[in-house]
């Protein structure tokens, strides 16, 4: 009994020191001088653009990951292609790699003198220091989530239902929409939320390819960092608070989804 209480207290203290206290401090610091400086700081042009850009990049990256995740997930789980195992390994790469390295890789590939960068530059397309670069970096780092959520569920349900649909006259497309997709819907939703959370918060890879041009390529995490470096405490805390708030909403949605996932 005593040891259990001790364990619980230790776990709570750990959570408090590492998680609750820092997040709480951000909220406290943000509003230390009342609401009006926060409002001023958040309604500035650069802040509004940073929020817009982060949401835009996420809104492009997540659907790309959903499309890729479903195709790769079915290919891996149904072993429809010989390279399925290879894809399975590669999909985990963004997890294992430091985002900064991913950013560097994109930089060398798409920058001046890079193989793809020069080819595109001739055609007037600029990837680095513009929205496409941000989308590439963000998509890359948030790539594994949908695949990793969807594959175990696909493997668990097996292919009997899909084969049953085929014997009843359903083509592959109908079978996917009416049988496979409903079966994985909660796992897919969970993957989307995780992917969106990662995309919104991404800093490392994005910081290298963005060039951090205020009002053009500065995302919300980059804005926080810049304001922090410029000793704009209220500005940094306010933007940071917005990010933390989004995370809280995401955690709430995840909790709801994981409950649905277990019930189905």
């Amino acid at each position, binding site marked *: 009994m005593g040891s259990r209480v001790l364990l619980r207290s230790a776990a709570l203290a750990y959570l408090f020191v590492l998680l609750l206290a820092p997040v709480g401090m951000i909220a406290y610091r943000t509003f230390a001088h009342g609401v009006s400086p926060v409002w001023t700081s958040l309604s500035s042009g650069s802040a509004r653009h940073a929020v817009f850009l982060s949401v835009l990049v996420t809104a492009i990256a997540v659907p790309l990951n959903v499309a890729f995740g479903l195709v790769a997930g079915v290919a891996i789980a149904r072993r429809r292609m010989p390279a399925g195992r290879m894809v399975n390994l590669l999909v985990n790469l963004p997890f294992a790699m430091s985002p900064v390295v991913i950013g560097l890789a994109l930089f060398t590939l798409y920058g001046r003198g890079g193989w793809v960068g020069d080819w595109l530059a001739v055609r007037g397309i600029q990837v680095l220091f513009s929205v496409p670069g941000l989308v590439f970096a963000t998509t890359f780092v948030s790539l594994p989530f949908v695949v990793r959520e969807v594959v175990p569920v696909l493997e668990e349900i097996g292919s*009997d*239902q899909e*084969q*049953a*649909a*085929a*014997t*009843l*006259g*359903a*083509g592959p497309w*109908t079978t996917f929409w*009416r*049988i496979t997709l*409903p*079966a994985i819907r909660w796992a897919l939703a969970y993957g989307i939320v995780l992917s969106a959370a990662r995309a919104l918060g991404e800093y490392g890879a994005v910081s290298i390819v963005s060039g951090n041009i205020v009002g053009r390529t500065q995302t919300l995490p980059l804005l926080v960092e810049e304001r922090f470096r410029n000793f704009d405490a209220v500005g940094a805390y306010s933007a940071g608070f917005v990010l933390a708030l989004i995370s809280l909403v995401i955690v709430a949605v995840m909790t709801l989804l994981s409950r649905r996932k277990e019930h*189905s």
Partner: protein
Amino acid sequence: MSIDAMSVTKTFGDFHALRDVSVSIDRGKLTALLGPSGGGKSTLLRIIAGLDEPDTGRVYIDGRDMTNVPARRRGIGFVFQHYAAFPHMSVWDNVAFGLKVTRTAKTTTKQRVAELLELVHLSGLAHRYPSELSGGQRQRMALARALAVEPRLLLLDEPFGALDVKVREELRAWLRQLHEQVHATTVFVTHDQEEAMELADQIVLINAGEVEQVGAPEELYDNPASPFVMSFLGATTRLGDALVRPHDIEVLAEPSAGAHEAMIERVLGLGFHSRIDVVLPDGSSVTVQLTRAHAQQLELGVGDIVFLRHMPGTTVTTNG
């Protein structure tokens, strides 16, 4: 519809599921693919359905080469061992699925689903979900779903394998009845020889990827092509060089030409039957089954010497 599989071979890695199998299944009959687990019978059924592709060989349905035709265009109904129910759809939607995807008119769909639910005794449960049904009910739903598209060929993979004994017996009788009603050629896979004997018009006995024998149940029982067929379809015992059924052995009190001398080790009364275990001078044991009245008439006791021979005209296979 008649089915002809010609020289079908299928391997999974190093495992030979089917080796050069050729078999013909007659139109309108209820056929059992019978055999021990891992013998290749389910693989053959799945190849007929188009769910698996043969490595070599061809499949003809009603004389038409269907080898490269996808499952959805073969005009079949398939019932999976574990039902493969669509869990996010009600019983009604499960049964209607095949009609919906083939764009059948709504009024026809409604009428047909109602008829089928009636046929499988699930009318009252149309709005339930598969998770709210018992195993037997799920299996009947799976059957109704397969029948909805009016298949010319109904294929069932171990249809009663996952059910308990009582439900299994009910469903057996019911499947037999259903087969007469719907007039589809029906093929089912089973490892239960009793189930095959009771239900089927024709049995295809498959073992180790090869067809051992094809024929009516009595034919396989009375004229087995090999010792394997004989022992798979019922009890056997070895008398000298011959494999015989325990109830086909004659017990004599006096020596006779061709009869083996033996000593009784055990006498068991099993209701209508009696079983005696005897031992031959070479030490081999033989089991004999006879009616209780006959056993009493012979006044058999442990330690008695008797003489055994297989009754003339009965089934015997010799070691070969």
